[in-house]
């Protein structure tokens, strides 16, 4: 009797004898495990990056990373923000009133930190510059992008991207809905929702419940989108991916996924170019692989279970010691 027979018995409401449950359950578990193992394998021809460094964040629960224009790497975790230099040495730590879930830094040296429901702005020396108003009890901030005039905050709890001016006033809230009856906007089944700015001032937003990446104008109008649900390497695996995005200096898009933890590089139009990191490059059950990209094209990936930032460079290119 095969697994299908067990399924038929289930459909009929029959209870299989214990020995059959034992045999068929083992077969079903083995089949499921085997399927996952095969999906974790990546074609070596596609894997064009390799790990060149590792930074131990020292956090019990790291949540987010950001690279400042001066190459300082900020890591948000536990109840603090830590700054690391180009060699991976910790330079500073700013203690916060709560757990930070996202972080960004701009040319002025300001550090924007997203706590669960609000943003706090700090100077590089750790002095608080301002604390912005709460976005409500449902807010769950997961990403911040800064473009010089605006601060864009992804709020997974309210399924919206909030546009602030630099004074911390809400300019507009983008829900992704276009007003039509069948438009449901951003679908965020789990607290992974990312936003980034292109060099041209366009907004790139993940729509994980739709397994796609969207390009939107500053007013929120959808310009284009790409991505498809698929367990194969070309698509977005699982029910809610990609979890994180970042932009390479040439405009290509880096994505990370959970379930099958992998980092991929797509053209700006959404065609897969290569794989930056494969599932076997990460800890077991790694998820929340936040991304940051250096000017030289190296990709920094937060690996929360390892409590570390992994640095990947194109094969043939190595990074500075530590980083």
């Amino acid at each position, binding site marked *: 009797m095969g697994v299908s027979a067990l399924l038929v018995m289930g459909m009929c409401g029959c209870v299989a*004898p*214990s020995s059959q449950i*034992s045999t068929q359950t083992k077969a079903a578990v083995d089949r499921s495990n085997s399927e996952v193992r095969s999906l974790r394998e990546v074609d070596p021809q596609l894997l064009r990056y390799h790990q060149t460094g590792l930074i131990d964040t020292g956090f019990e629960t790291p949540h987010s990373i950001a690279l400042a224009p001066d190459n300082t790497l900020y890591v948000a975790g536990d109840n603090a923000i830590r700054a690391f230099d180009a060699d991976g040495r910790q330079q500073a730590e700013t203690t916060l009133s709560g757990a930070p879930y996202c972080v960004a830094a701009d040319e002025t040296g300001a550090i924007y930190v997203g706590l669960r429901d609000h943003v706090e702005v700090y100077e590089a020396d750790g002095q608080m510059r301002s604390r912005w108003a709460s976005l409500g009890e449902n807010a769950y901030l997961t990403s911040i992008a800064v473009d010089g005039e605006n601060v864009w905050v992804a709020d997974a709890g309210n399924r919206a991207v909030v546009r602030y001016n630099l004074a911390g006033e809400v300019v507009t809230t983008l829900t992704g809905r276009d007003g039509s009856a069948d438009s449901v906007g951003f679908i965020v089944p789990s607290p992974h929702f990312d936003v980034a700015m292109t060099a041209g001032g366009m907004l790139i937003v993940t729509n994980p419940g739709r397994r796609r990446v969207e390009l939107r104008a500053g007013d929120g109008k959808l310009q284009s989108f790409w991505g498809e649900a698929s367990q194969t390497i070309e698509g977005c695996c699982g029910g809610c991916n990609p979890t994180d995005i970042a932009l390479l200096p040439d405009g290509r898009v880096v994505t990370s996924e959970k379930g099958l933890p992998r980092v991929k590089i797509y053209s700006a139009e959404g065609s897969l170019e290569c794989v930056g990191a494969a599932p076997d490059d990460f800890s077991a059950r790694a998820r929340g692989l936040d991304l940051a990209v250096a000017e030289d094209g190296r990709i920094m990936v937060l690996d929360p279970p390892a409590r570390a930032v992994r640095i990947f460079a194109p094969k043939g290119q190595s990074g500075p010691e530590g980083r």
Partner: protein
Amino acid sequence: MSDAPEKTSRREFLSAAVRASGLIAASGLLGSLVSRGAAQEYVWQIDPDKCTQCGKCATTCVLNPSAVKCVHEYAQCGYCELCFGYFIDQREDDTEAAENQRCPTNAIHRSFLEDPYYQYVIDEAKCIGCGICVKGCRMYGNASLILQIRHDRCLNCNQCAIAEVCPSNAIVRVPADKPYMLRMKGNDH
């Protein structure tokens, strides 16, 4: 005053005997209740954070089918259109056909709520506690599906057969007045 023992009538003797036996019976009942109370202070449960969904819960429990069932924590669920507790990884399409389902006994029912949300309900009568759906949900989703020992079925054996073989020591004793271990620790996924 006479030293002779007082005579006890047959009626008095029987009455005293009945009182004594009643007292003994009451004591025994009280002892039994105390004893049962002590035995039921703790029950077996699965710690979902330790569980690795190895499949042994389905095959080792003294009951058939197992007292272990998949339990859905709806507050954790993303109501995903593509739930990988429900669907297998690789399939021809996204229909609810049997060959697309991860559950080997068709114990998960999927129903449309509103675009693009779906609800997933466990039919415990069909669930055998194999944990295949739990593994899929934990891997790709919010881990809202968990395995739990259902106490309307569990015999609360002195030594749980599953606990003896569990590779991750996930079967633990918990207070009987709090017999379930839900995740609900925040949206860490």
